[in-house]
């Protein structure tokens, strides 16, 4: 059980890290959102599952499961809200324009 839990925790931390690198390295808003939005939910879920596996207290298990459920509900919704707000305020166009400007000034 210890080994499985450690595996889950490791995967979770790796995903957290890759999400963090993604938000720094990706070029524009939507890809950054993708990096964080996808990894964040999975990473949190992995870490929580890992914690559930090593905890021996039933009450702690229940609390962790509740946190897991809440995360699964809230995190994708938050990502969706963010992307939706960006789309509605025409972020895509602005970004494209600024990219074009950058390339034209470079060339």
């Amino acid at each position, binding site marked *: 059980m210890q080994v499985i839990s450690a595996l889950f925790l490791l995967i979770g931390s790796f995903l957290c890290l890759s999400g963090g690198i993604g938000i720094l390295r990706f070029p524009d808003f939507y890809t950054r959102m993708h990096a964080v939005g996808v990894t964040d939910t999975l990473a949190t879920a992995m870490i929580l599952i890992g914690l559930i596996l090593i905890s021996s207290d039933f009450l702690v298990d229940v609390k962790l499961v509740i946190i897991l459920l809440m995360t699964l509900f809230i995190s994708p919704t938050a990502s*969706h*809200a963010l992307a*939706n707000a960006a789309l509605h305020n025409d972020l895509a166009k602005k970004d494209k324009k600024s990219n074009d400007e950058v390339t034209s000034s470079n060339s």
Partner: protein
Amino acid sequence: MKDLLAVVMLLGIYSLLSASFFVTMDAVDVAFTEAAVGAGVSTLLMLVAITMTGRKEHPTRHKPLLAIVVVIITGSLLIYGTLDMPRFGLAEAPIHQHVAPRYINDSMQEIGVPNIVTSVLASYRAFDTFGEVVVIFTAGMGVLALLSMVRRSEDTENIDSNNYSMHEQHLILRIVSKMLIPFILMFAFYVQFHGDFGPGGGFQAGVIFASAIFLYTMLFGMNTARRVINQAFIQILAATGVLLYGSVGVVSLLNGKSFFDYSALASDPIAGQHLGILLIELGVGITVAAVMIIIFFNFADRRNYSPNKDSENS
């Protein structure tokens, strides 16, 4: 930093970090309050304020040099002051000698509430807490006096069409929050009535309850929320909480004990303490929730009348 949105977000992150810092110091109640009030509600209220005032700070002409000098002097004085403080965690420190032993040793016999923080807050220091509640109430009244305005009667058709367009735009958010709001409200009641046994109490519960209402208001629009929540009723509730708190004190006064001595409330002193703490926590919770809702509604109302209407779907 000129971008006010980033400043507010940093403030929220700072609050959350200090909440986790409080948890590691075993001050769970304080951490709870910090997370609910500092990271949650005050960030939200400042965001609402920003949608009214605009996102960028105006360029200032004053020199920040004087401010920095004052900050450095004050900071170094404070650090100099800490040099005389007893070592961190020292058991002989004056703060652990004065009243803390009595709270820790005797509160179980005197009050009978497992959470010492609650018994200190609600019984030993009932006067202080009453003062805090009155301050919150006064703040709510101040916001009401400064910001409230006569409502123009909206026609229903306008509300419905507005509602429909919002429904398409925020469909997922609406569905998820519809599922979550009952649990948030339930959690608020749990925090309210479980405050005697675990971390929690009236302040946190009131804020959590109010934040569920904020969520509803943000997603379903001011006008719908106005139909659900009667403003006059909320104002009466804000006063009722303070009144409930104060009258508990008056009742114990009438029963021949001193103000806020709850042992006068029932024949058994411990039962009296329990009843008193329950009642005043309820008063605190009602007042805090009502004042938060009043502040939020008045802020959001102002926003609808402000000239820049383009930030509608933020």
